[in-house]
């Protein structure tokens, strides 16, 4: 005969009932740890987990550089676009150097000793059909593929939740939960899904902080891919600067933003073998979504910047913002153009800085400062559109105000450090 169970009224009664049920249904005994359990423990304890995390990130980064940089971009794409696609377009497109339509679509050229000369690479040409196609298909696609492939594998193995546990203590110091590492990692691929991934954070304070930090201090895979191709020697310094900014401004935001940062409970699944089908379907979904967002913006960016040059609007902006950029941030006035392009696509803007660097307009430190500024000055249009959706107007204004303050404080500080070191 079945036992009649009284419906529990209080919390204590509920717990008593849970105890009773578990005594009847759960078999108690000594659990012998398996090797998998022991490895899982090692990856979350700081003393052993941090070296493991260092090795995993090393593997992540090495694969990214060799896949996107050495093999595809430098190995095949640069040759395809610079030695075949660009010369072919230069020879068949009507108009020639100096023609407005030719400048917009193929090559604006650049001045050398007072003479307008044709560009010899797709970073400098800045036409819709040259840089506009080279940036997304020659560089960014491979960087994003490499990033999402490793990300999907780590996700399916079950390593990411452990990384979250590992960095929990550090992130709590800036008012965030360890889970914040997941949107941060996602943002390294693309800020748009990264911003969406902050939804599980419980309070508005945490979400506001996370969105602000992501949109300012976390460069996307496209941007990283271009940086790796153009300025690999500066990558370490750029990332160090961004990490310091992320933690430093996170700490400050935690102090000044009202609200609570409560704990959240996270599921840490056992380690498991990733399946080929799962990894490939994630890779396909994320990469195709990314391309659908990226390609139109890159093409539009090339067109708008080209039009601004042709109409003289860019010269006006350079004249207006030049003194501020040179005086406060220590970068040449020509940086205005990449900063404007950066509203649409930051990868495109880094490509423009690369073009300026190749023309000898910038010193190494100015390139470094410009790239950091580009990362932190404003989120790209797609991320900004999502911020409007995710935040109320007060939070959005707050994010923008924090952003302006961060750019001026951090950009000025970098310039100051450069002056003190004698490199600015």
């Amino acid at each position, binding site marked *: 005969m079945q036992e009649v169970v009284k419906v529990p009224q209080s919390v204590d009664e509920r717990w008593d009932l849970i105890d009773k049920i578990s005594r009847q249904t759960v078999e108690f005994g000594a659990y012998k740890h398996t*090797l998998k359990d022991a*490895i899982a*423990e*090692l990856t979350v304890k700081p003393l052993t987990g941090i070296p493991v995390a260092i090795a995993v990130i090393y593997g992540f980064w090495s694969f990214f550089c060799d896949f996107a940089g*050495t093999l595809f971009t430098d190995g095949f794409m640069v040759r395809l676009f610079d030695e075949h696609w660009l010369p072919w377009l230069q020879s068949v497109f009507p108009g020639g150097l100096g023609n407005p339509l030719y400048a917009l679509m193929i090559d604006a050229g650049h001045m050398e000793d007072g003479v307008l000369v044709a560009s010899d690479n797709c970073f400098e040409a800045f036409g819709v059909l040259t840089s506009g196609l080279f940036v997304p298909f020659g560089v960014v696609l491979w960087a994003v593929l490499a990033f999402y492939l490793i990300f999907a594998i780590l996700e399916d193995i079950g390593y990411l939740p452990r990384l979250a546990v590992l960095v929990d203590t550090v992130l709590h110091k800036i008012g965030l939960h360890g889970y914040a590492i997941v949107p941060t990692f996602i943002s390294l691929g693309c800020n748009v899904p990264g911003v969406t991934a902050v939804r599980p954070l419980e309070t508005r304070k945490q979400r506001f902080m996370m969105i602000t930090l992501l949109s300012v201090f976390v460069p996307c895979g496209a941007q990283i891919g271009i940086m790796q191709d153009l300025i690999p020697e500066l990558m370490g310094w750029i990332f160090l600067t961004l990490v310091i900014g992320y933690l430093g401004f996170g700490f400050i935001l935690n102090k000044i933003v009202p609200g609570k940062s409560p704990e959240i409970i996270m599921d840490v699944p056992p380690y498991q073998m990733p399946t080929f089908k799962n990894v490939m379907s994630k890779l396909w979904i994320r990469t195709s979504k990314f391309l659908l967002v990226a390609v139109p913006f890159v093409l539009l960016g090339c067109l708008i910047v080209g039009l601004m040059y042709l109409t003289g609007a860019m010269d006006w902006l350079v004249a207006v913002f030049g003194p501020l950029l040179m005086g406060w941030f220590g970068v040449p006035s020509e940086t205005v153009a990449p900063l404007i392009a950066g509203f649409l696509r930051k990868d495109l803007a880094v490509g423009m800085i690369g073009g300026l660097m190749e023309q000898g307009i910038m010193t190494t430190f100015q390139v470094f400062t410009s790239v950091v500024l580009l990362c932190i000055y404003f989120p790209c249009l797609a991320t900004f559109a999502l911020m409007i959706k995710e935040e109320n107007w007060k939070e959005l204004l707050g994010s923008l105000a924090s952003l302006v303050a961060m750019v001026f404080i951090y950009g000025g500080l970098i310039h100051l450090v450069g002056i003190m070191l004698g490199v600015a």
Partner: protein
Amino acid sequence: MNEMEEKFGQIYFAVLGAVALAFGIAELIASAGGGFTWGILDSSGAANPMFLSWRAIILLSVGFFYLSSVKDFAEVHQLAKAVMASIMIWIVAGMAIWSMIAGSIPGEETWFNSLEGFLASYAPPYSPEMFLLPFSLVILYYIKKEGETATE
């Protein structure tokens, strides 16, 4: 695993740990002094200078992991340290091999590398983790043994 296997594992991974530690220290010094190439051992970091000190930290950790696993080696948590150290070697060495593969496919002047150029990409000198890789595979035997013990 039996006593003999445990004893062998202790000695083997102690030696491997000491070697990994020595490689880590050498790479750390090399990263400060611009790197070195000694016979078939390459610690120049010519391809990716940024990675040299990073790799040094990993090899030092591998050495410590192996050495700390030696005491009571058959115990599952101790064995896990040796397994983790081996996995770290596989990550670093795997990436060194992947770097060779990625560099060997495109040619200097042509789309694809010549056969000579392709093969030359795999010629020595090699970075330290490549020498540790085959020796780290011994852990697979112990993983298998542990699996058998767990199912008994």
